[in-house]
Every structure is written in structure tokens, then in C-alpha cells.
């Protein structure tokens, strides 16, 4: 069933290339259908003004039925934004990457969501359990069972 994930990603890539990304989001690298990189920036007034971050997407053969593994890049001098839902290792606690993932969401949709997650932030701080989490975190953030704090 690699064909579905490949066909779907090819289509997404084609649209990105033909239509461009939404403002503040740029495709950095997408040489294969396994890992893509984007740069992300919050436009307008926000706590993250003039800051630019790199997002990494990893896809398995079950994409888009299963969610992509998404995280901020924290190597090569890059850092993750300081945000209550972003761990210092780049892992992101966002329900749409976990139990609220839907196969109709796309890579761009995820970028836009994360962009506005940053835009709406009121206070720059790390998650309270950052140190404990980072010490034992798995390589793939999808293996973490996040507890979504603000769940109703």
C-alpha cells in the first residue's frame, strides 16, 4: 500500500510547488516521500516576531491514515520555540498530531495549525514536565502518549 502514501504526498508536493505555501511557511527540502522540512515563522505581532523555526515531517507507509511524525528541528544550531506545548527536544504536544489526527488533514494544514499555535501564545515558557520528558523521550514523538492538557 505504499502507492497511497506516495500518490498522496506527490499530490501534496505538486500543489505546494504550484500554489506556494501560506505566508510564513516555506518548503525547505522534500527530496523523497519519507522526510520533509519546512521553515515556519509567525507573521504579524506575536511573541515570536522575527524568529524562524524548522519543522520536520516524517511519513510512514500508512500516511495519511496514520499521522506524520512532526517535530521542530533542534540540531545544527537550530532550536525549538519556547512554548508551553513544545519540548526542548522539539517534540510537540498537539492533539491533531495524535488522537485528533484526521486523514483529510495535510502537511500544509499541520504547518498552519502549528503556526497559529505559536501566534496565540501568551507566555513564552517550556512545558512544566519538560526536563523529565526530554530525559526519557522516544526518538519518534508518535511513540509518546501525550496527555492533552486542555482537553475538555
Amino acid at each position, binding site marked *: *500500500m505504499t502507492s*497511497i502514501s506516495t*500518490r*498522496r504526498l506527490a*499530490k501534496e508536493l505538486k*500543489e505546494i510547488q504550484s*500554489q*506556494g505555501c*501560506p*505566508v510564513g511557511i516555506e518548503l525547505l527540502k522534500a527530496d523523497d516521500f519519507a522526510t520533509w522540512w519546512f521553515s515556519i515563522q509567525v507573521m504579524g505581532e506575536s511573541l515570536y516576531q522575527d524568529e524562524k523555526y524548522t519543522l520536520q515531517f516524517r511519513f510512514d507507509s*500508512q500516511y*495519511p*491514515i*496514520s499521522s506524520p511524525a512532526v517535530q521542530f528541528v533542534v540540531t545544527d544550531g537550530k532550536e525549538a520555540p519556547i*512554548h*508551553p*506545548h513544545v519540548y526542548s527536544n522539539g517534540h510537540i*504536544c*498537539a*492533539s*491533531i498530531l495524535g488522537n*485528533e489526527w*484526521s*486523514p*483529510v*488533514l*495535510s502537511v*500544509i*494544514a499541520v504547518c*498552519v*495549525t*502549528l503556526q*497559529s*499555535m505559536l501566534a*496565540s*501564545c*501568551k507566555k513564552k515558557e517550556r512545558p512544566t514536565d519538560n526536563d523529565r520528558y526530554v530525559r526519557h523521550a522516544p526518538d519518534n514523538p508518535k511513540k509518546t502518549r501525550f496527555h*492533552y*492538557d*486542555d*482537553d*475538555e
Partner: protein
Amino acid sequence: MDLGDDFKVSSKGKRKSYEVDYDSLSQSAVEKSMRDDAEHIRGILGVENDTAKLLLRHSEWNKEKLIESYMDTPTKVLVTAGIILPEVDPQSTPTPIRTQTSNSSSSRRPTRSTSKLLSSLSSGSRSSKSSSSSPTNHYSPPKVSKLSKSDEPFVCPICFDDDPKLRTMALSCDHSFCSNCWTNYLASKIRDEGEHYLRCMAEGCALVVPDGFIQSVLIPEPGAPIGDPAEEAENAKVWARFQELLVRHFVGCNPNLKFCPYPSCTNTVSCPSAASKLSLTTLVPIVSCGARGIGGQTLSQSQQSLGLQGKEHLFCFGCPIESDHRPVVCPVAKMWLKKCRDDSETANWIKSNTKECTNCQSTIEKNGGCNHMTCKKCKHEFCWVCMGPWSEHGTAWYSCNRYDEKAGQEARDSQSRSRASLERYLHYYNRWANHEQSAKLSVDLYAKTEKKMEEMQITSALTWIEVQFMKKAVEEVEKCRRTLKWTYAMAYYLAKGNEKELFEDNQRDLEKAVEDLSEILESPIEPENIPNIRQQVTNKTVYVQKRNEIVLEDTANGFLDGRWKWNATVDGFDDPDPSAIAL
């Protein structure tokens, strides 16, 4: 819940005091009572069958609560259970804050996912607490698929397939996807995630996929064109797994039911008398699901020869211990196992596998189930457990099962309190571990014996039946050693007093009988002494059986009467008398 009535059993003969009333149910029997419940709800609430099933699952099979809340606010219940869409107030449909710079060609692409995504950001990323959209109306059902169906060819929003022959499917929310994507999605949720509560694939859509829909996706309708057989077999497996998940959920919701813990077994046991935590202080609910053997597991030769591949699925209804821990109640058994895990990784354990002859100091390893040791070198006979001379065990005086409190006091004089406490623990632990080990060794020994008897059957005039008496005896020894093993866990926690002495008397009688039988089982077998051995073994087996009954019956009655007092705090029991607390 009135399951007790549905699952009525005809009690098989007179129940013993250490046995518990229960019934074992196959998966189809449980499915039947699920259907009955759904039928009941369907009749009362006047809803579709699939709706009744989803409502029950959503309310965790609590029929009373479901009926009550449904009578109060049917729409709300249907919405929260994911059966219908919430009413949408057109005013509240959020306006997109940011849209893609779209040209005409992009209209086919689900741009709505971008705008809708933003609308649900407050629930989606959970990042902004300040968001003002209320949780009840943030959801707006997109109405894209219906329009696009008539206007332009259908493109599956997941795989982007636009084949005009594509079979599309949608729930009542009209989110259409191709049947291939539905199949992949449902299969991945059921098979990989073990989920039985599956939502529509559209982002933010809260509708739950009804059983009928799942079936129509996974199982081709009769008369449908024949598809790929491998794929169909896989889908049928997913559908079967879904059925099993539903049964497991139903069983998990009902305290009267427990799923058989044996690998790949799908039976359920109903045991209402052990459903409450309180009941576990008065009975040990050992049950069997009725099935035997373990699918796909290879057994050692000795196990096979004992017919162990047909071993019934015994487990405890009250706790996670997957074996018979009678006569000890669950909270005490749990305490003991925890203590053994914490304290037993000591050199003392290694020590219990080899010992020195008390006479000539040769190192001896135990290689049979019997405790009567004879030193190969100096012919000194002694007891493996207490290391005392065997002659003392053979007579009426038999002190091996009892921790000598007097000796304990002397030990306290010379050694620290903690040392005495460790010794006390090791006294019970060594006997516990010894019975476990001996039971295994008896089975191994039997394998050798059986081989020998088979040979004799060929070389002598004995028939197959005549060499079978050992089997019953070994089975009985194994069973009794299991009882004995747990009596040491019990005795460790019993408060000192007459009750404990009586308990240890019964324990001693059983232990002596078992060791005697074990010894006969190890005596050399020759064709000429077979009738004699057979006589002895048969008699002893009957006696051992009787002693085991006595221990089990008396202990069980003691729990029913509240006779047993502990030397430590046990979950569900009164706190121990301060004077009884063990060091």
C-alpha cells in the same frame, strides 16, 4: 445489571466450600447477551439496532443510566454518542482568519481543511486558552462532498484518486471517501490500535462509524464481484477482531464478567459472587473458562506425557494471578508475591538449590521431588527442608512444617531483630519455593518413570491400564504441592494463636502425606514389585486427596466465618491486633 439472570447455571452437584459458583461463556454466548441488551434498548427507546449498540457502548453498557439520560435529553445523548450531528447555528460558523491565496484551480483541493482547521484551532492544538469559541458550536459540518458530487468528478480527499468508477461511502455527515481509504482506515484502527469506537475520517467530525457500516466496508455483500482473496481474508480477520474487541469492551464494563487470560482464548467467565472487592475477603474465586490447552504452544515432552496440553484454563476471577492460589485469599496472595519479588533475590535462594550433607559436608543437589535425602557418599539420611535426620520424620513426630518460635527467640537474643525477621521469612519462603520446585521435579521424574513402564509393558505381561496408576498420583501430588505452597504464604501472615496452630496441623498432615506419596513414586520400579507399588500408590493417593480436601475446606470455612486473624494489615480485613504484628 441483570446479567445474573441471563447467565443462570445449573449447579453441578453439591458445591464445596472452597469452590465458587460460576459459569463459563463462549464468545458467541456473550455476543448473544449483547444482542439481547441491544434489542432491549431498541424496544424501549425506539431506535435503530446499530444506534442501540452505539448508545450502549457509549454508556458502558449501563442500561438504566442510558435509558434515564435518553428519556431526559435524547438529542444530547445522540450527539455525545456520535450518532447524529449537532444542530449548527449558522451565526456561529467561524469565519476563516486566513485563507490560502487561492486561484480557481485550487477550489478542488480541500481548502476547507485550512479554514476549518483554523476554526477548530482552539480544540485542535489546545494551545490557546483564550480562544472564545465555545466547545458546543465550534464544529461545523462541511458540505463539500454533496456539492462536488454533482458539480465535478469525485476526488477522494485522502488518496486523491479520481477514477470515475470509484466506490464512495459516507456516514450521515456526508463526508465521502473512497471505499479503499475507508478499508485502510478501519483496518488500521481495529488491527493496529485495537479501537472499537471509530470516528468519521473527516477532521473534527464526531460521528461514530456504526457496526453495519464497518461490516459493509470489510465484508463484501453476497453476490458482489470476487475481489482479491488475500485481501478479503485479511478484511474478514479484521472484522472478527472487531467483534472480539466489542466483546472485550462489554466484558470489561461488567464486574460480573472476566475475560479468560490464557493466550488466544476468547472465552468469558461469569462469577457474580466474586464481583465485589469485599467478597474477596471471604472466598477465593478460582474459575475455569472451560477451554483446555494453549493454541500454538509447544510443550515439553514430560508435559505432553502428563496430558498437560489439555490442561484446563484455571485462573483467579478476583485478581491477576493466573493460577490456582487456594486456599489463600487474593489480598494475602498478592502481598506474599510482592514480598517474594522484593526480598527473594538473595543468596539464600541460590543456597536452596544445593546443600551440604549434615554428616559429611558433601555438596548435594536435589534432583527429585522427594525431601528424603540419602547422601551418596556417607549414606546419611536427612530431610532436605529442615536438614534434620530423616528418622525423626518417619515417626509420628514431624516438625518440618513449623517455624520453631523458641529457636526464633534464641536467635533474637544473639542476633538483630532484622536478622530474625529475615529468618522467619526465609523459613516460609524456602518451603514455598521447595513445593514449587518439587512439583516440577515430580513431573520430570514421572516422564522418566513412564518411559520405563512403557518398556516394561513390552517386556512383561503387564497391560497399559496396569501401568497407568502413576499418572493419577503425580497429578495429585502436583495439585497438593500447589495447595501446600500457598499454605506457607498464608501461615507467614497468620497471627499467632490456636487458629494458626490448627492450620499448621492440617498443613503438616497434608505435607507428610504428600512426601510419603512422593517417596513411593521415586522407589525403583521392577516388574515383580509393580502390584505392591500399585497398591501403595493407590491407597496413598486417596489419602492425600482427602488431606487436601480438609486443608481447602477448613481454610475456606475459616474465611467465611472470619476466623483468620493476620499479623499484618491486609486489604479488606480489620487491622491486626497490635500484639499480633510480626516483626
